[in-house]
């Protein structure tokens, strides 16, 4: 069992850290203040191959592994949670399902430009009446000749409006279960921005990750070609859950980065900040808090990397992904909160990065499955 990275991964981390420091960090505060999507940064990342890290080269990707992708999200999130989630949603929630479920034609048409960085991707499952309870979804797709006709709406969609290609889940069939109750059957579709009948509603005003574009998607008699059905008709729910298993590893990496970034900012701050004539780093309370924060983030890193390796090597990794996301998200929330506390009044101002990091961290306990959902997944596996 190895707990050290090999030279290849160390070099990849060096690349991501350098990019984050030089290109992302200087814009993080402004991105948060203005709530503007960091298009310039995304364009740079697209050119450098950051948007297709774990995708095989034959489909336009970098041909690296899940761990490398996770380290990219981690390093970006150390300085900017918004930038981290843009890469995560694009890679885990849009590229990955096309790679897993797409036909060769779909991969050539959609995955190649996504992985090359020519297009940006998004994923839409959540609806106003259907979050954790995905069965509550109302968006429908009806077959009509050579087309599917989509009607309904999706909400809280990351990369909304900014993305070019969307994975949309819609009800295509209603069957009866063993007890005669109606059960919805979902299917997944690939929908391009600009398709008639596909429009964007309101942009969410959020607590954190404010530069991430979070939109409502609206489908009104939106006609898409039959060949844009992704995977098997009626098997969309399983595809969505499997995709979210991967997505959770990306969000766990985002949480990991946020916690680590807040820890580093706090270490730097407590050495400088003086009270009672000495740096607050000299007080045992500060030292013990830092020790707890660092230990928690180290544990989170092991779990997130373990989940990345599980996705790399195993067909099913729900358990590892759920544990990593649950632990990393709660660690990020606790550590960023402590970071603000150790910064005192300064930490509560927007002058200091930890204030933003604490707001950014909260979403990692909520999206792509709340911490409660992760506990359901974990306990479900334990008690089956």
């Amino acid at each position, binding site marked *: 069992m190895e707990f050290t990275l090999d030279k290849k991964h160390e*070099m990849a981390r060096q690349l991501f850290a350098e990019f984050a420091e030089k290109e992302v960090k200087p814009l993080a505060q402004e991105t948060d203040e203005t709530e503007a999507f960091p298009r310039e940064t995304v364009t740079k990342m697209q050119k*450098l191959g950051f948007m297709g890290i774990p995708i095989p080269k034959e489909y336009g990707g*970098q041909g*690296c592994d899940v761990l490398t992708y996770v380290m990219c999200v981690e390093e970006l999130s150390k300085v900017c949670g918004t930038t981290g989630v843009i890469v995560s949603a694009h890679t885990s929630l849009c590229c990955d399902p096309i790679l897993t479920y797409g036909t060769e034609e779909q991969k050539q048409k959609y995955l190649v430009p996504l992985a090359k960085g020519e297009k940006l991707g998004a994923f839409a499952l959540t609806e106003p009446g259907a979050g954790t309870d995905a069965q509550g979804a109302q968006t429908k797709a009806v077959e009509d000749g050579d087309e599917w006709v989509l009607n309904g709406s999706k909400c809280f969609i990351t990369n909304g409006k900014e993305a070019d290609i969307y994975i949309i889940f819609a009800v295509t069939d209603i069957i009866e279960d063993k007890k005669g109750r109606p059960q919805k059957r979902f299917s997944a579709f690939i929908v391009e921005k600009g398709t008639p009948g596909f429009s964007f509603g309101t942009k969410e005003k959020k607590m954190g990750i404010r530069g991430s574009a979070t939109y409502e998607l609206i489908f009104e008699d939106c006609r898409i070609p039959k060949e844009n059905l992704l995977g098997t008709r009626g098997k969309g729910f399983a595809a969505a859950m499997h995709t979210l298993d991967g997505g959770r590893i990306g969000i766990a990496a985002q949480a990991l980065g946020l916690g680590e970034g807040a820890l580093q900012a706090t270490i730097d701050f407590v050495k400088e900040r003086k009270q009672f004539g000495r740096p607050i780093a000299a007080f045992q309370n500060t030292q013990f808090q830092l020790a707890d924060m660092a230990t928690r983030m180290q544990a989170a890193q092991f779990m997130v990397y373990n989940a990345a390796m599980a996705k790399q090597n195993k067909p099913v990794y729900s358990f590892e992904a759920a544990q990593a996301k649950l632990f990393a998200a709660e660690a990020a929330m606790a550590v960023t909160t402590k970071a603000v506390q150790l910064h005192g009044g300064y930490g509560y101002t927007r002058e200091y990065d930890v204030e933003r990091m604490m707001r950014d961290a909260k979403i990692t306990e909520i999206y792509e499955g709340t911490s409660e959902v992760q506990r359901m997944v974990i306990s479900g596996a334990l008690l089956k």
Partner: protein
Amino acid sequence: MKIVVCVKQVPDTKNGVVFNPDGTLNRGAMDKVMNPDDKAGLEVALRLKEANPGTEITVVTMGIPDADSVLREAFAMGADKGVLITDRVLGGADTWATSSTIAAGIRNLDYDLIVTGRQAIDGDTAQVGPQIAEHLGLPVISYAANVSVEGDSVVVDRQYDDRIHKLKVKMPALVTCLSETTEPRYMTPGGIFDAFDKEVTVWGRADLKDLDDGDIGLAGSPTKIAKASDKVRKGAGEKRADLDAAGACSYIFDKLKEKHVI
């Protein structure tokens, strides 16, 4: 066209410099990076490759076996081949022994242009590049800010403090490059993965021809280091944008008088 780029693995000074009790550099306690001027030199070569399709870039480094990581980094940026010159008998080399050794290595290669960094951040001598040119009997242009190729010549903007010299020289030639004027590109994640699948050519003493044993390693090094210390940084200086030409002149003269320079 064939370009040889010389790079050196140096201690990363980002987090300060660590010394041994005897005043020598504690390299083991510091992270290692590609020397910034050398990285700029590699970038110059990569841009020449883009402008002149068919160009092949070979990166050469001399150091401990671990220095091969600097070649992997060069591969990940776009270099084609890598040579690591490593041998115990080559250790402890000063600029003379280093340049003699690297020049001997380059004699094994085909080249039109040799690119080096101006100087390394650990030794700061700026001697190795020009010395390699001397050993190989090549023209050298230092402080290259911009490099292009015209036919069988290389055209270089040589950066001085206050002016640029435009020079044209027939290849083969050697240029030394500056990190201030050339921003190196990032690696790519896929480039890093490919870099570790590539073969690095490793040469020891036996592979180096036309090289006198008196010119290598510690024994072949005329320089003896008495003491090393952290670099004394130049101050940022004072900028006055509020003065006209006459006012600026008298301000400068006053300052020079104040410091008893004139």
